């Protein structure tokens, strides 16, 4: 599958870079959870110093190839670009991507000896690997425990038209090889032995489970969980979905799986079934645009009642909804219109209504009501020396926010270990 977005040409990047105002104490940089030094790397594009730009990106952020492609710029840097007060914001993410696409990883790396201590990191997603890299740079050695695939959500669940496999492999390989994190494939369920063996532990296990839909018929053949399906497709396997697919949900996962199902078979009918309207879709704008361009269609204002069928899925019965007043999150609630139900003929139903943390592991860790791991300001959990971050603490968030957590945890862990010695 060809990538949806083309990288900027050198000329396009140079002209775009000229639009940058090089703001003092730039808002874009402050808004970036990883604090990528945006005006500085753009200045380096302008001067033709692409390796300098790459070094800046690489220093601030371990997942630069990933974020150059999938970071929702509208939520971060570009949302606060001062240039929008003159005309339009800089295309910061695309400039970032231009740098990573035009340069090889810097090999001028100097790493200290790993004399400061040993840290166990549970989960090799963006938060875990960011933490491992930061700790390695500071002089710690890390063992990363990952029962699934190294790379986490972007590697496993982001569609190839946005994030090609070879880019992912290059990035993850660079991170694990250069920063010499030892990857252990055993599944960790209890933290106590690790806490005893290592100087500190960082838990970044994400949200491994998917929310179930509480309606009749979800046991039928042809009902899938969205992320499981994404992982299957991303691994190269055939999804097994039929020709008339309904994806239930309105978040990024729903849009992602809908896109990837169209990408897998462009003749397949894929409809996103969502209880609210287009305005309330939680997915990022660019992902929605790409899904629409791929031919994904939408059934808005439809609340699923049950999956219809005897053995296999034959349809999805929904009730039409109307929008009421905004709730505290500023979004409109949807309420069913009594007596307005109808059945959408489908042979496949994909459930993408949310993700959950695994509450069956790590006994002894304090958790919030929803089961997320509780941490203090310093990212330490209720167990001394055990830190946590990423989706397992905050719920579903972006790669760059996971990176922020990993970097911050590394700093805190370094301070903790130094204080204990």
């Amino acid at each position: 599958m060809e990538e949806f977005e083309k990288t900027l040409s050198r000329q396009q990047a140079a002209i775009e870079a000229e639009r940058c105002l090089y703001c003092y104490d730039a808002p874009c940089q402050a808004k970036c959870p990883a604090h990528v030094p945006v005006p500085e790397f753009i200045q380096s594009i302008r001067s033709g110093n692409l390796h300098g730009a790459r070094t800046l990106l690489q220093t601030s952020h371990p997942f630069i190839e990933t974020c150059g492609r999938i970071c929702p710029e509208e939520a971060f840097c570009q949302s606060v670009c001062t240039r929008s007060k003159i005309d339009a914001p800089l295309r910061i993410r695309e400039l970032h991507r231009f740098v990573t696409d035009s340069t090889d990883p810097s090999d001028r790396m100097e790493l200290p000896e790993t004399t400061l201590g040993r840290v166990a990191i549970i989960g090799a997603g963006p938060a875990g690997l960011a933490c491992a890299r930061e700790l390695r740079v500071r002089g710690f050695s890390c063992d990363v425990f990952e029962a699934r695939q190294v790379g986490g959500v972007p590697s496993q669940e982001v569609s190839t038209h946005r994030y090609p496999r070879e880019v992912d492999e290059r990035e993850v390989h660079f991170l694990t090889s250069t920063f010499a994190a030892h990857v252990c494939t055993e599944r960790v369920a209890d933290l106590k032995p690790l806490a005893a063996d290592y100087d500190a532990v960082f838990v970044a296990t994400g949200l491994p489970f998917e929310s179930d839909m509480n309606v009749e018929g979800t046991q039928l053949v042809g009902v899938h969980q969205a992320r499981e399906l994404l992982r299957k497709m991303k691994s190269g396997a055939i999804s097994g979905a039929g020709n008339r697919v309904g994806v239930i949900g309105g978040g990024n996962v729903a849009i992602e799986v809908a896109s990837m199902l169209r990408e897998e078979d462009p003749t397949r009918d894929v409809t996103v079934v969502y209880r609210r309207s287009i305005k309330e879709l939680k997915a990022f704008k660019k992902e929605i645009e790409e899904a629409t361009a791929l031919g994904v269609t939408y059934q808005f204002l439809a609340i699923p009642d049950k999956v219809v069928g005897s053995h296999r899925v034959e349809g999805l019965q929904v009730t039409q909804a109307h929008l009421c007043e905004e709730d505290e999150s500023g979004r409109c609630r949807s309420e069913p219109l009594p007596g307005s139900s109808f059945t959408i003929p489908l042979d496949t139903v994909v459930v993408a209504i949310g993700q959950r943390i695994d509450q069956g592991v790590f006994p002894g860790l304090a958790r919030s009501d929803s089961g997320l791991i509780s941490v203090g300001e310093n990212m330490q959990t209720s167990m001394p020396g055990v830190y946590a971050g990423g989706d397992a603490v905050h719920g579903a968030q972006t790669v760059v926010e996971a990176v922020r957590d990993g970097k911050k945890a590394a700093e805190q862990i370094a301070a903790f270990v130094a204080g204990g010695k």
Partner: protein
Amino acid sequence: MYREHDLSYDFLGIHLENPFILSAAPPTDELDMAIDGLKAGWAGVVLKTTSVESNPVNLKYPMMSSFGTAAHKLWGLGNIDLISQYHIDEICERVAALKRMFPTKMIAASIMGSRKEDWQSLVWQLKKAGVDLVECSFSCPQGSMGEAPGRMLAQSVEATEKVARWVKEVAGDTPVLIKITPQVTDIVEIARALKRAGVDGVTASNSVPALIGVDVETLEPRPSLFGEGAYSGMTGMAIKPLTLRTIAEIARNVDITISGNGGAYSWSDAVELMAVGASNVQFCTLPMHHGFGTIRDLKSGLADYLDRKGYASPLDIVGKALKSIKGQEELVTPRSRSDIDLDKCIGCGNCFRACSDGAHRAILWDAEKRQPSVDAEKCPGCGQCMQVCPVNAIRMKEELDGKVHYFEFKGTH
């Protein structure tokens, strides 16, 4: 459908329908190009510099180079061009042909020679062909001939005066312009020499001797012909301020007619050149960049300007700015302060940083609100902040004798 403002006037006794002339350069080096330019509406042409038949002209290509940024490639244009490869015989035929086709346009020709006989022969032949005006290149940055080889004629006061006299002796009542270089110690000396020689005016000024660049990968000069290069003559927007100073300096000191040339890219650039003393304006880089059609906006912009300002003729502009050009020591000493319009301010912080690192550390920065403010005690009103402000939200405010005056940003249109 719309009334056209009359832009015509007399220049050295020659009728000009507007002040815009195609200079002696590639746009006038072919007959059909000169014809197209005149048809498009240019008031006249100076045919590219010609020489006597015995003078070989050995051009080196590629001759053009430029410098700028990705979005503005052509701030400055460079050439290692020489004079025309067409000799005086051909040019005389063209002069006659153009005069027949365009009897109301100014048909001028530019010449360069070495010996007295050459200069005088060139002038004599052009006069015979019916030329309106003769321009003499004393300042081609490459391929200088005659008195001081390797040096431009107009870099020597004595040579300039001597050769100008030779030319004027033969030219008689045909107007003669001497095209000079800005690259001299004292431009006024040169202009005085020309006045003494009795020529009709100066063309100020020719391209500026320059090294356009060095390729940092190969460390070869630009342009590079198989690894080797030469100095260029630089033209284009980048040299306008140099030309303005050259013209102003001549006009302030010597009573001589000036044809402005060098760096004008728009009607307002032309107005600037005229305001400091040019009686008309020659163009080369603009048509080489955007074509002969640029004459439309030159005329329409100037017409609108004259209407707006209540000037009857382009001549009304000539020299209007001169009385205000003074020595720095003669200027009043205002006590101004930076005055920031926070309604216009977009909070980029460029003024704060520029003041902090390049001026007087007199702008304070509210990081929370992303807002600058001025420390009136420290600010002398230097004006650097208003140069860097991307939205022109900054002025210098002066309160003198209870009256408020603002110095505002002037730079772009």
